[in-house]
């Protein structure tokens, strides 16, 4: 029996919104520590990992481990019915056929309830080790989104080059090339605009911009985004949430010369 209540549906909506553009169907693994999700895209070059800890919910109750196989598009459709500020309650039996969603608009005393059919999904689960990254860049999520969008005009891929001085996003395409460089920047009055670079060694990697722009759909989840890079390992893009919850994306770097 699962029962998890979120004060604002917005968090869940945004998370699902971001994931649904990467994977089609996936399992929500529920246990007493929270709701976790891990899925790869069809090409298996990107991975999304979500952890909504029990603390994010009030209340949270999960007696057993339950896997909720969900088609994310369908879930998105249902979640569209939820207002941003509605409280969202997820409920499921122990061996569920459906996921029950209840949206409550407290202001209007309006309660909507949906049952979403579940499906059996065979999914391989990858163990992601804790990695010491060569570079960890924290930056405003909106800035990252803008960079990826801007560079999409130039090329399909972006090279992220982290040095002591800053981080440089550059793209070279048919029409020319372009680059954006961010320097460390810690405004006291606007903590959301902080750009922080932790660097153990310089690193430069190339990634598919299309995937990155997709990741950026999680931007509403968090003001800050963390990019973690190391040579020859997947880039991690993390949207941190309150209470240790997170939504992380992993993307394999492009190795070898670009076309």
């Amino acid at each position: 029996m699962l029962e998890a209540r979120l004060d604002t549906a917005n968090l869940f909506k945004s998370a699902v919104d971001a994931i649904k553009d990467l994977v089609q169907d996936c399992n929500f693994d529920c246990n007493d520590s929270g709701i976790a999700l891990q899925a790869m895209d069809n090409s298996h070059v990107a991975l999304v990992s979500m952890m909504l800890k029990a603390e994010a919910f009030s209340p949270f109750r999960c007696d057993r481990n339950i896997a909720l196989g969900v088609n994310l598009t369908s879930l998105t459709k249902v979640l569209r019915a939820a207002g941003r500020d509605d409280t969202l309650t997820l409920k499921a039996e122990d061996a569920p056929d459906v996921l029950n969603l209840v949206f409550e608009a407290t202001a209007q005393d309006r309660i909507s309830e949906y049952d979403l059919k579940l499906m059996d999904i065979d999914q391989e689960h990858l163990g992601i080790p804790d990695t010491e990254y060569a570079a960890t860049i924290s930056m405003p999520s909106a800035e990252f989104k803008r960079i990826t969008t801007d560079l999409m005009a130039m090329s399909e891929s972006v090279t992220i080059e982290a040095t002591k001085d800053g981080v440089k996003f550059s793209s070279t395409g048919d029409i020319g090339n372009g680059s954006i460089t961010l320097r460390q920047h810690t405004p006291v009055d606007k903590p959301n605009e902080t750009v922080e670079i932790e660097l153990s060694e310089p690193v430069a990697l190339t990634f598919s911009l299309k995937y990155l722009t997709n990741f950026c759909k999680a931007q509403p989840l968090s003001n800050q985004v963390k990019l973690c890079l190391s040579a020859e390992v997947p880039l991690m893009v993390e949207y941190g949430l309150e209470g240790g919850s997170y939504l992380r994306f992993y993307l394999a770097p492009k190795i070898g010369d670009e076309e």
Partner: protein
Amino acid sequence: MARTRSKGGPASTSADKTASTTAKAASTSTYTLPAESTNPPKLFVLPKNTSSSARIITLENPRYGNPTRYLVCPETGSFYEFTKAAPPNKSTPRSWLLSSEKSEKEPALESQTIQSPDLYLATPYDPLFLLLPALFKSSSNSKSDNQQRQYLSLDDYLDLIPNTDRHFSEILTLPNSRIEKVLEARLASVCDLVEMGDDKMYRPNESKLSTIILSKASKMAENLPPSMEEKFIKKALEAPVMGVVKDQPPPPPPPPPTTSTSSPEETASPSASESQSTVTTSSGTTPSTAVTTPATEEAPEPAFAPAITASPATISLQRLRTSLNFILSSYLPPFLSKTVLSSLPSETFTELEEYLTKLSKLRTEAAASRNIDINGGKRARDEDDDERLEKKRKMEQEEKVKKANTSRGVKQLAKVNTAGMMKLSAFFKKA
């Protein structure tokens, strides 16, 4: 060597050699290439023993009623019909090149070419056939009632023979003509005879006629040309290999559509041919004298018997019937063919008939079973197809649902060029 005007007319023929006779239609110049003759010569093979008074005359064909040329030799009283031997393959151009050896008797024929490759063979012809229409015409409607026919003299009958060009009467009146005698003899063979003083009066007798026809047929059956043997005997009685039918341990040969097709000229209806069948088999019991051969002649034939059940007797019966049908359909007036067939003793061909019906039954069974096989296979295949279609439909539906449940982002990511990107499973081990 006689020259024959190919174009009809009482030609000045006296063919005394089997050699070919040509007609020189146009005069030729020695020096220039002669113009093509508008009436080119034709090549005939004529019998040796005709006298110089032999003529080619035009008479009405007893079968078809159209004017047809016959070679008649008054002195021997023999009739010949012309058979045109055409080249088997019309697409290949052929022509005759003629040259003659020097002969003391006649001036050497000028060498020449004839464009038409046709060859006309004069083959002996029973003048009885010429008489038949005249004999039986009068009574064709009254059903073969011998009593109702009148006794007539030979001359009366001869008068009935169509004589539009007067060729026939001319031939009769030639000096030394034996034709009338021959005709009388032939007439007598199919007629009842009454003598009134010097006059002999004849009345056609159908049973006599059928006896004669049957004897002709059995004579012909003894020596069928190979092409006919192949087509109408072997093929007709042959049983195709029936590997398909397993539930019929002794697979009797299904005959190819023999019964009626056995000869294209066959005018006989199946029932009629059934009735003819008696003559041969039961010839011993049949009073008809003419049916000479049947059982005995059949015996030596079995070598041809197809591996299956067609007995030698059956084969020779088939031969006889083929011959009979040939004669009936090419020489007798149509109305007479039926009369002859119906006047044959009814058990003549019973054995053959039995065989054929058995075969046709088996053949239909075989065909049916083959059809079942085919249909069965087809059905099985159809079912397979159905299943496959069903599956396909399901898959398509699932795909549709899947597509409908796929977000735009996922679809767009599918187009991303991921070359050079390693799979994440290369970095992260399976948990």
